[in-house]
């Protein structure tokens, strides 16, 4: 049986570790179910650094060292694979997850230590690789869904791997292989609601895959039907994601029974009192299932004794509760007052809404299918249901202008929203990245890896895609928004108009849809 070492790389170093990596936890469970020998070292949780990573790698003779994560884990992954190659010269180094999937050829070039990359969903590909290792066969080009190096050193992409449809056959995530008591439970708190703040034993569940919407900044990790294989001009295969006029999706969800049984298992075995749903958009699933999915989850949550006791019995919320409070991601247009009330009665405490902006023109171009009106409506529906809405905002959209900034500020004022907006960031795999790639590379001296290394939270500026504002202006404008300083924003608008020679009577914008975003500004 194959000896597998999973290493979870560090992500969001500026914060404490809060999330067991769900994908790795599922893959570890799949491997164990098939009889393989599995160990997990969670560097993101322990953060012990190089010396410990070396000791872990030297703890046994591994058939494979397997890593994966989101794009911003790249810095840590780069460090770990270098050490892994040195300490384990004979192990197959495997990389998967969103980081590899969005840029498979680039990643394999930047990380020569990696032997095989798993593109997109790994539920089928990963166990097949382990079986090959067992048989002593390391020809990866015949395993679908991989990228590897041929004998000539050239990269070879095998045919795409289909998505798994019978999701309920997946084993439960191997949460027990992660430092729950030592690290994750002490970091359970989520400061988005009173119940989130009081959470002391939180785990996450991913109940569905995909989202029917096409927000230009969003990336679905190649596991939502969002990825297509295409041939470039040299006849080489590559992956493609959302681009103007080409959007594909496959919506999949676990049955309500699976979801609630899994929650009950987490409650009984790990004594959790809070669950964070990781789903991209719970409301897509609700709509897609003809409004039955969420309703049935809530019903079963109550029937299985998981709804917090005070909600079920009509008492007062104290500092603790029996049952499980939970949270997730909603959508302004797809939610309904009825389902929000159902969700509250089953213990939902807060819902993240990517409102992004309150400007009609920005929202129209975003692909979210929302308007300022649906944003405001859902905000009140959610509050009325007794759930806290988390109103995420962004600044620096391609068409952001002074008016759109003022529109958002006016809405914050009206709704009592206190927020520090994210900067619009073109993460690889998103349409913004695909459309603006050339411009982003130019901002990083033509070196895409520098951009990837720079990416982190969208709370800092990296690649700018706004046609009207540069990085300095966006930083300044965000500060002015936080200070509600409409006067200085107006004064700067006059300076900006003069700098850009905009004649009186013309709107304060350089935005044009006919040219590729940003390059338009360069060409001017």
């Amino acid at each position, binding site marked *: 049986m194959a000896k597998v070492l999973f290493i979870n790389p560090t992500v969001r170093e500026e914060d404490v570790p809060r999330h067991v990596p769900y994908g790795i936890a599922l893959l570890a469970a799949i491997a164990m179910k098939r009889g393989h020998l599995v*160990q997990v*070292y969670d560097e993101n949780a322990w953060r012990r650094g190089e010396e410990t990573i070396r000791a872990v790698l030297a*703890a046994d003779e591994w058939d494979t060292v397997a890593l994966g994560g989101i794009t911003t884990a790249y810095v840590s992954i780069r460090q770990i694979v270098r050490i892994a190659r040195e300490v384990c010269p004979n192990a197959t180094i495997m990389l998967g997850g969103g980081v590899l999937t969005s840029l498979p050829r680039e990643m394999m070039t930047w990380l020569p230590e990696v032997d095989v990359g798993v593109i997109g969903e790994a539920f089928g590909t990963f166990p097949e690789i382990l079986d090959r290792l067992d048989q002593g066969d390391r020809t990866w080009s015949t395993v679908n869904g991989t990228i590897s190096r041929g004998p000539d050193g050239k990269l070879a992409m095998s045919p795409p791997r289909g998505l798994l449809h019978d999701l309920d056959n997946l084993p439960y995530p191997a949460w027990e292989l992660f430092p729950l008591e030592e690290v994750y439970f002490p970091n359970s708190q989520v400061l988005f609601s009173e119940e989130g703040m009081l959470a002391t034993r939180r785990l996450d569940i991913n109940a569905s895959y995909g989202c029917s919407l096409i927000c230009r900044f969003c990336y679905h990790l190649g596991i939502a039907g969002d990825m297509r294989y295409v041939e470039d001009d040299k006849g080489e295969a590559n992956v493609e994601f959302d681009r103007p006029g080409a959007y594909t999706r496959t919506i999949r969800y676990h049955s309500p029974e699976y979801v609630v049984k899994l929650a009950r298992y987490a409650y009984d075995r790990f004594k959790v009192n809070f669950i964070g749903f990781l789903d991209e958009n719970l409301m897509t699933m609700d709509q897609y299932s003809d409004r039955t999915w969420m309703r049935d989850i809530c019903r079963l949550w109550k029937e299985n004794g998981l709804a917090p006791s005070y909600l079920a019995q009509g008492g007062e919320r104290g500092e603790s509760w029996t049952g499980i409070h939970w949270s997730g991601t909603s959508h302004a247009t797809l939610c309904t007052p009825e389902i929000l009330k159902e969700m509250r009665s089953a213990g939902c405490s807060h819902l993240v809404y990517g409102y992004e902006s309150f400007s009609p023109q920005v929202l129209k171009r975003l692909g979210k299918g929302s308007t300022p009106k649906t944003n405001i409506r859902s905000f009140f529906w959610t509050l009325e249901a007794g759930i806290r809405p988390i109103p995420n905002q962004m600044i620096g959209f391609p068409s952001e202008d002074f008016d759109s900034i003022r529109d958002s500020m006016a809405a914050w004022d009206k709704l009592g929203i206190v927020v520090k907006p994210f900067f619009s960031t073109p993460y690889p795999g998103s349409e913004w990245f695909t459309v603006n790639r050339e411009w982003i590379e130019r901002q990083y001296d033509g070196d895409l890896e520098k951009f990837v290394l720079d990416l982190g939270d969208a709370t800092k500026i990296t690649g700018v895609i706004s046609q009207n504002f540069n990085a300095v202006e966006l930083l300044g404008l965000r500060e002015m928004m936080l200070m509600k300083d409409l006067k200085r924003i107006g004064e700067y608008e006059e300076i900006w108009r003069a700098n850009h020679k905009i004649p009186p009577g013309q709107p304060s914008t350089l935005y044009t849809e006919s040219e590729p975003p940003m390059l338009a500004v360069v060409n001017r």
Partner: protein
Amino acid sequence: MNELLKGNFQTKNQVTDSPAKEETLEDRFEREAKKRLGGSIAYVSKKKVMWDLKNEKK
């Protein structure tokens, strides 16, 4: 002692935990000060300073 590796078998070598370095008072002060940066709070990050007075004319 923390069990850093978790899995379904016993590895050949054990991995002992070298707990994260104890935070020094200097580190703690700089971390706390950074959080409150602004207004009258400013501080010198000692690690970034080059103590080079040799070339200075006395």
